[in-house]
Every structure is written in structure tokens, then in C-alpha cells.
């Protein structure tokens, strides 16, 4: 069963053509890594999946809802589709525990005791139980991102979107975040779409690798074809050559 389906999707910012004829299907439980040079439309694409960006034409089905349709209630989709941002976007006025508990309380009406237990379990899972009472400004970037992942997981989503989750982090913190993401990927029912330059992570976790440039999908391969074989597309080969040598 498919979780995300792009059919001939177009997106413009004014005159700028951000997404050009995007066709992409991601099945439930699939782990897909999206790569490409900056300005290629990766972030735009991933942000359309939970309606943070609207598409102008084509069809975009997420969990059965059509996001190109203006009448679609975004909140229904966002309940099931979480997102982890490059800059964490933790609520600055809330403690770590409240960051995790707030949306389940407001949106899912989860009972308080159950909500707190689940939040503490998630904090344990990301290794930050001792930070429950801290505020976001007291956390390092790596800690903040692990909390952000826990916050998304607290909604028990079917699908998680990661928009360059390690790009704003110091190198020594990247592995902590990637390790948490790997534990998330162990759940075979969780659909993951990850924009990242971490090729080690892609090799280990991804089922498929999608390469974008200039708002178009140029390559959509299984992990094996992409890394061990050769991508068909010249720009994808060049890009791969550049990031692998780093």
C-alpha cells in the first residue's frame, strides 16, 4: 500500500519553478533517502508532504488524502505524518517534557498519565530522560534534535519526514542523532522520507535513494543500484562522486 504518491506535481514560488513534473511513490514502511545539490527542491518536496508548502498542480496523495485539493484538512494528515526539521523547532517556551506531551494532549486528547508515561519512555529511548525538565535553550544541537524526534514519535505517526536533520549539528553530535533515526527505522511499519547528505546512513537504512536537481527527480534507484552499481544519470554520478570522497 502506498503512503505517499506524487503524480505530475508542479510547484512555483512566483516565477521560480521549484518542482517540475514530480512523480514518486513511496510505500508504507519504506525508507527513502532524498539527496541532491542545494537548491534542487529536496526541502520543498518534503515540505509538500505535510502541507507546509502547497502544490499548484498535479495530485499529491498522502495517507489517502489529496494535498493538492484545497479543501483537504491538513490537520488530519499531520496527525499521522511527523516532521523533523534542520533547526529542530522545539517550543522555546516549553520544557522538554512539555514539548513532547503538548501535541498528543491537544490533538489526540491522550489521557495525562498515559501521555506522560509515553513521553518519558521516548526520552529514555533517545537517551535524554534526565533532560525532561530542561528548556530547549539549555540543550546542545544534538540533544535538541533527539528531543525533536521523540516529539514527533509521541504522535505515533505512520510516516516521518526528516529535512536535513543533521545539517545544523557539530560533527560529534551527528552520530547520536543518526543512531536514534536508525532505531526509528527498525520499525518496519514506519514510512521514512529523509533529506540528508549522510551517505553512511543511506547505505545502512534506505530502501531507495532518490536524486533531485533543478526541481526534478533525475534518479530513483534501489540502494544497491545507487551505491554499488551506477546511477544512469550523469549529474547523479557526479554528485555521488563528490560526496563519497568527503
Amino acid at each position, binding site marked *: 500500500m502506498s503512503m505517499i504518491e506524487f503524480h505530475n506535481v508542479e510547484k512555483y514560488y512566483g516565477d521560480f519553478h521549484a518542482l517540475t513534473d514530480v512523480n514518486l511513490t513511496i510505500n508504507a514502511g519504506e525508507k527513502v533517502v532524498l539527496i541532491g545539490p542545494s537548491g534542487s527542491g529536496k526541502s520543498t518536496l518534503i515540505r509538500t508532504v*505535510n502541507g*507546509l508548502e502547497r502544490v499548484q498542480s498535479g495530485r499529491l496523495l498522502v495517507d489517502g488524502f489529496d494535498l493538492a485539493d484545497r479543501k483537504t484538512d*491538513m*490537520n488530519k494528515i*499531520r*496527525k499521522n505524518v*511527523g*516532521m523533523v*526539521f534542520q*533547526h*529542530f*523547532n*522545539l*517550543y*522555546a*517556551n*516549553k520544557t522538554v517534557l512539555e514539548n513532547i506531551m*503538548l*501535541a498528543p494532549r*491537544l*490533538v*489526540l486528547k491522550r489521557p495525562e498519565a498515559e501521555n506522560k508515561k509515553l513521553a518519558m519512555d521516548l526520552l529514555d529511548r533517545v537517551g535524554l530522560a534526565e533532560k525532561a525538565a530542561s528548556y530547549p535553550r539549555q540543550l546542545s544541537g544534538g540533544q535538541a534534535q533527539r528531543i*525533536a524526534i521523540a*516529539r*514527533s514519535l509521541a*504522535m505515533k505517526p505512520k510516516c516521518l519526514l526528516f529535512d536535513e536533520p543533521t545539517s545544523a549539528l557539530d560533527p560529534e553530535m551527528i552520530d547520536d542523532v543518526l543512531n536514534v533515526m536508525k532505531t526509528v527505522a527498525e520499525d518496519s511499519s514506519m514510512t521514512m522520507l529523509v533529506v540528508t547528505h549522510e551517505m553512511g546512513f543511506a547505505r545502512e537504512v534506505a530502501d531507495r535513494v532518490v536524486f533531485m536537481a533543478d526541481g526534478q527527480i533525475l534518479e530513483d534507484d534501489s540502494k544497491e543500484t545507487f551505491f554499488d552499481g551506477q546511477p544512469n544519470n550523469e549529474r547523479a554520478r557526479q554528485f555521488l562522486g563528490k560526496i563519497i570522497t568527503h
Partner: protein
Amino acid sequence: MGYIISHYWNELVQGLGYTLLASVIALFFSTIIGTMFAIFEVLPNRLMRVIGRVYIEIFRNIPLLVIAMFFYVIVPLYIAKIDGFTAGTIGLTLYTSSFIAETVRAGIQSVDLGQMEGARANGMTYWQAMSKIVLPQAFKIIIPPMGNQFINLVKNSSVLAFVAGFDLMYQANSIASLSLDTINSYMVVGLFYLVITLPLSYYMRHLEKRLAN
């Protein structure tokens, strides 16, 4: 000054009471109305933004005295019988609300956009995100300019003197003409205003420090 204070004590206390009452009412309602129009101004809906803009520009750009006179003269004539105190307080509320709207809007816009996006992506509605995440942060940022607005409000309440509102300024005029001691009358009333504004400005500063941590 001692003579003025002791001889006109009752009038001064009455004036202080009315000034305080008008200020508290106007502060409460102008904060609510101002916040409402500030939110209008940042809504995705264009019509709401225009409504917010028009309201703010009208009440921000017409002198307070003209607004107060409108409610004192025109409203009783055609719409409803209201006394001078009510007319002055309504005028003061609407006038101040336009400045508070501008202050709150600036506060909302200074909160990182990621806060709203994070909350929406987390499943919250626009109103949940606004009320639980964005507005609390905005209000914390704007405490100092809000303090200015509140102090201006107290001082601007002197407009009540022109619409028979029995406030401190009204009493000052009346005491000055009765006692013929103009200088001391206005100096005493100036001191009475400080009785309200100094604690207010001290409190806002205290709030700023307390919330900074």
C-alpha cells in the same frame, strides 16, 4: 502644595480613583482588542489582514481627543446615552488598542517562523499553535514596549478632563480655578499621576527581569 493637598484631598482622591478606573478598564480591553487585531494582521487570510490594517490605521492616526469627542458628542446624540467617563474610556481604549496591536504584531513577527511550523507539523491547529507557542513568546519579547504603552495610557487618560470624566486632570482644572493657585494645583496633580505610573513602570521592569530567566 500642602494647602492644596489638604484642602482638596477629597477631590484629588476622587480624581485618582477615576483615572485609575479608566486606566484599568482601558488597559484590560485595549490589550484584548489590540491582540485580536494584531492576530488579524498576521493571518493567512487577506481580508482579515485588511480589516486589521484599516482598524489600526484609523485609531492610530486620529488624535485621541477627537476620538474621545466623537464618543462624548456624536454617540450620545445618535446612538446611545453614555456619560463623559464612559465616552472618554472607550476612546482611550480604542486609541490605545491600535498601538498595542502594532506592538503585539511586531512581537509575533519576531518569533522564529519555525515555532509555528514545528507546532503545525506536530498536528496542532493554527489557533493552538498561536495561543500555546507563538503568543506566549511574543508577549515575553514585548514586555518593555508594552510597559511604554501602559504608561502612555495612564497619562493619556487625562483626555477625560475634556469630556467631564472627573479624572485627575479634570480635578486639576477645577482646583486651579477655585484656589487660583495654578502652579501648585498642577504640580500636585502631576505627583498624583506619578503615584500610578511609577509603580506600573517598576512592575513592568520587574516582570521583564523575572521572565528573562
